[in-house]
């Protein structure tokens, strides 16, 4: 099955309209409209509780929205969930990896879940990519936080997803590790991978993204192209957006 060619002719990798998510009485997302062109990188900022993680989880199809439409590569997410999940990769707060299995076993498991052909080859590739070749047969419980993050990235890239979602990927990583991570992500994509990530670091984000969005209390408070912004401008805008609601 070669759905890759058929689907990726759509210009927008991700498109949402009116996405709302409520948990009982609490409304986490109040109508999100996003258009993310294929191959672009979108940075999502916002204070804690703004709904960033919720948005990422909904895009990853782990959470269902209360209402609204989500199109991934032109197809409705809710009607094509299983197909589209193979096109999405997710690096979340937690690693999604089993601590008493080895790195290799973890990846082998997910490779089977994603139905990959020629598993061993791909697993080897991805482990080399994140520079964990020497530790591939060690149990995950022996890995440091940074190494686990790298393995989480390896897991996300295993099935070569054209769309990569990252939820605050820089947490717990030092500058060097962060550079390495972005290097890995960019290296594999050939410029065609769409990336959506949430972040608290303006400087790092501006360096890698094409577009910026600020989320506040479940709404998009501000959106702009990165080329039109500088670091101070962005910081100021962020203060404005988050302060405005506090009044």
């Amino acid at each position, binding site marked *: 099955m070669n759905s890759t060619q058929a689907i990726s002719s759509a210009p927008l990798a991700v498109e949402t309209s009116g996405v709302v998510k409520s948990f009982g009485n609490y409304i986490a997302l109040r109508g999100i409209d996003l258009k993310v062109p294929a191959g672009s990188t979108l940075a999502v900022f916002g204070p804690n509780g703004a709904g960033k993680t919720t948005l990422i989880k909904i895009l990853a199809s782990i959470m269902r929205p209360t209402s609204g439409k989500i199109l991934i590569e032109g197809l409705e997410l809710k009607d094509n969930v299983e197909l589209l*999940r193979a096109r999405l990769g997710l690096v979340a707060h937690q*690693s999604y990896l089993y601590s008493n299995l080895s790195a290799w076993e973890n990846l082998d498991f997910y490779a089977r879940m994603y139905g990959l052909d020629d598993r061993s080859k791909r697993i080897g590739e991805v482990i080399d990519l994140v520079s964990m070749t020497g530790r591939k047969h060690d149990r995950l419980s022996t890995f440091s936080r940074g190494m686990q993050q790298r393995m989480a990235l390896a897991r996300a890239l295993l099935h070569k997803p054209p769309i990569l979602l990252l939820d605050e990927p820089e947490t717990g990583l030092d500058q060097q590790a962060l550079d390495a991570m972005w290097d890995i992500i960019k290296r594999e994509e050939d410029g065609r991978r769409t990336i959506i990530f949430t972040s608290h670091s303006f400087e790092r984000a501006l360096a890698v993204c094409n577009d910026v969005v600020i989320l506040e209390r479940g709404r998009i408070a501000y959106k702009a192209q990165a080329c039109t912004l500088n670091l101070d401008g962005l910081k100021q805008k962020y203060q404005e957006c988050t302060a405005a609601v506090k009044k």
Partner: protein
Amino acid sequence: MKFWNSVAAIAWKDILSELRTKEIISSVLVFAVLVLVIFNFAFNLAPDLILQIAPGILWVAFAFSGVLSLNRAFIPEKEENCLEGLMGCPVGREAIYVGKALGSLFFMVLVEAVILPVFALLFNIAVLQSGLITVTLLATIGFVAVGTIFSALAVNTRAREMVLPILFLPVVSPVIIAAVKASAISLNGQSWSDMTIWLAIILAFDIIYLTVPFLVFPYVIEE
């Protein structure tokens, strides 16, 4: 095909993980043997009377050790939020249910395979007969089928392990009752035809207890 590949992957992952730690197997086995030993002291009966209560003792051992083992089914998925990782995979949520149930079935059958000979030894009863084994296997399928979904429920509640027996044992009691009755018939040396009605009941429950949780499981793990 993709569905069954995922199911196999999940079941194998659980078995592999358990082989590493041997957490479930060791504690459950010890517990089951303890149950048998306690019963031995609780009832100081003549050999022919033991035959009457043997099926009950067996199923108390299986049921309680089964609950212990099922309790552990979803706990690894809670660490590092692995369940979300599974939910993001391109396969229906039902595959998670079936995979987990298969893993639990494997563990429970393993425990039963050890307990039955131990029981035969301690109580001097020939339990390793085809009738009893068939009943045990069939009933274990139903037991694990319901237990898996309740385990998924229980792990998300405040009281976790305490909740599972309360929720699960009443619902699965018809299967246990039928299993005990059928086992008694088997141990009494009666023919298969006498057991048929009970086997049919257990089979009917197996079907219900596989179908309904299969349909309802996605609602338990959704966010």
